[in-house]
């Protein structure tokens, strides 16, 4: 959304309240479930590739790797089903719910605001603009690293999962093409899926930092908004 429109919206609301309801309950719930799923996925995923030191004792008495993989697969289902639910909410929810799926790349103004935000992060401008939803730079990052990233991780992940379920399973039928697309050796898919994990970790670092920083530095609330749904404006 454009800053002016948002400013208008904010101003109109400001006449009555100094806050705007942005994120509806299902979206907020999804955000935190999703955050938890990603955390579990990254940690268990790391240990699937580089397992923990061996556990002693009878093999029949242990199931460590099995539990780690189970947690990974369970979290993956939650992540993927949540993502589908999130797409559904983008359709039926308010217009802020659509932001991470559709970029107004045709709008020159939007691009100029992306660069304005970039300058704000480079300490070149003194005052940020007000946004009810995501700022354009955040929206761009969210689209590139979360939306595209999620699709990438779901496709590569379920392609690998389909190998375990076996030929002819739903995952193999739906996502098996990914393995063929990278040349047929799933070792490649493992490597690329793992690289996707690191990209996600980098994104989470930036996302959390930006949220905290903006909560302090910008003219509106950030973290509490994802909890209560209300965007508060400070001035």
């Amino acid at each position, binding site marked *: 959304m454009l800053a002016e429109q948002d400013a208008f919206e904010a101003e109109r609301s400001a006449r009555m309240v100094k806050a705007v309801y942005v994120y509806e309950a299902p979206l907020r719930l999804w955000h935190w479930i999703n955050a938890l799923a990603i955390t579990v996925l990254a940690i268990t995923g790391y240990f699937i*590739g*580089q*397992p*923990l*030191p*061996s*556990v*002693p004792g009878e*093999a*029949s*008495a*242990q*199931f*460590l*790797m*099995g539990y*780690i993989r189970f947690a990974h697969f369970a979290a993956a289902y939650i992540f993927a089903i949540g993502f589908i639910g999130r797409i559904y909410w983008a359709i039926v929810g308010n217009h802020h719910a659509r932001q991470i799926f559709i970029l107004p790349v045709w709008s020159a103004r939007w691009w100029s605001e992306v660069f304005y935000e970039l300058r*704000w*992060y480079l*300490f070149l*401008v*003194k*005052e940020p603009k007000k946004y009810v939803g995501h700022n354009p730079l955040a929206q761009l990052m969210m689209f590139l690293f979360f939306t595209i990233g999620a699709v990438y991780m779901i496709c590569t992940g379920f392609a690998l999962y389909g*190998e*375990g379920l*076996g*030929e002819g399973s739903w995952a193999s039928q739906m996502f*098996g*093409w990914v393995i*063929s697309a990278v*040349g*047929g*050796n*799933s*070792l*490649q898919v*493992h*490597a*690329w899926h*793992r*690289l996707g*994990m*690191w*990209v996600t*970790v*980098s994104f989470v*670092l*930036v996302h959390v*930092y930006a949220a905290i*920083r903006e909560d*302090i*530095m*910008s*003219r509106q609330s950030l973290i509490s908004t994802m909890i209560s749904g209300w965007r508060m404006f*400070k*001035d």
Partner: protein
Amino acid sequence: MTDTFYEVLRRQGITRRSFLKFCSLTATSLGLGSAFAPKIAHALETKPRTPVIWLHGLECTCCSESFIRSAHPLTKDVVLSMLSLDYDDTLMAAAGHQAEAILDEVRAKYKGNYILAVEGNPPLNEDGMFCIQSGRPFIEKLKETAADCKAIISWGSCASWGCVQAAKPNPTRATPVHKVIFDKPIIKVPGCPPIAEVMTAVVTYMLTFDRLPELDRQGRPKMFYGQRIHDKCYRRPHFDAGQFVEQWDDDQARMGYCLYKMGCKGPTTYNACSTVRWNEGVSFPIQSGHGCIGCSEDGFWDKGSFYDRVTDIQQFGVEANADKVGGTAAGVVGASIAAHAAVTALARARQKTGIDTPKGED
């Protein structure tokens, strides 16, 4: 016309009684009803044996070496009784012009009815000069023979994927069969070499049922390449338990723990080693204490070390795996964030950016 199976069996001294017993047994072991026994008998009595031409391109003959060691069925039974192996320049008695004459004869006589088995692959660089047979490039012989065949069996990783001679930088441009022949059904039987029993079983299946076995997405017979080594590995319980060999000579290695951390490619390799095993079921690499190297997978020779679990990603041009590349990226991002936060704090302390808190309000 070539003899039928029945005629060959009778000639080898097998009684009709034994032959019919064999048919009943076959029907039972295939899970078919007793009504199928006469049908099998009828097929074996009337069907002429299918001629097979076996060509050798750029290869090491390990597929042939494996094939002649088949125990179930014995290769002699396959070669002498089941199929009519009319041309195989490594195994045949004829040589020179006589040998080449057989090739022409089979092509003319059984046009569209013979099976072409290819071991190795054609190199395409320098007009195919890197593999010359009977005075001309192998690629020409392959294309001519393939033109009149019913189906092609790509023996081994060479014919299926390219194998070691196609490894980077592939100076001879060794090319797998399915990338030069497009108009024939191709069955890939990869492996370096494939398991002997898998080879004879694929041939037996095709001759018995007169059709191709069911193939997976990449053209391999599902019955042998439908599952990964990992799925049927006898060390799998150690994997699920989280018990791994950490060093080649440690206690875990002696206790037969999972070789995952030693770079075993079982989880990404489709083959029957963990079920059929090798040398009449004696053993297979993992049972002998070494991880699977994934020899039946496409590009196994170019996918990083055999001894790493998280293997190098070739696309970066340097020797780096996902953890090195991704971990470094995440580290750089983290450091940048810390620096950015520090600058932000400084700037804010000096009131350079950020929002001035309204004074005197509220």
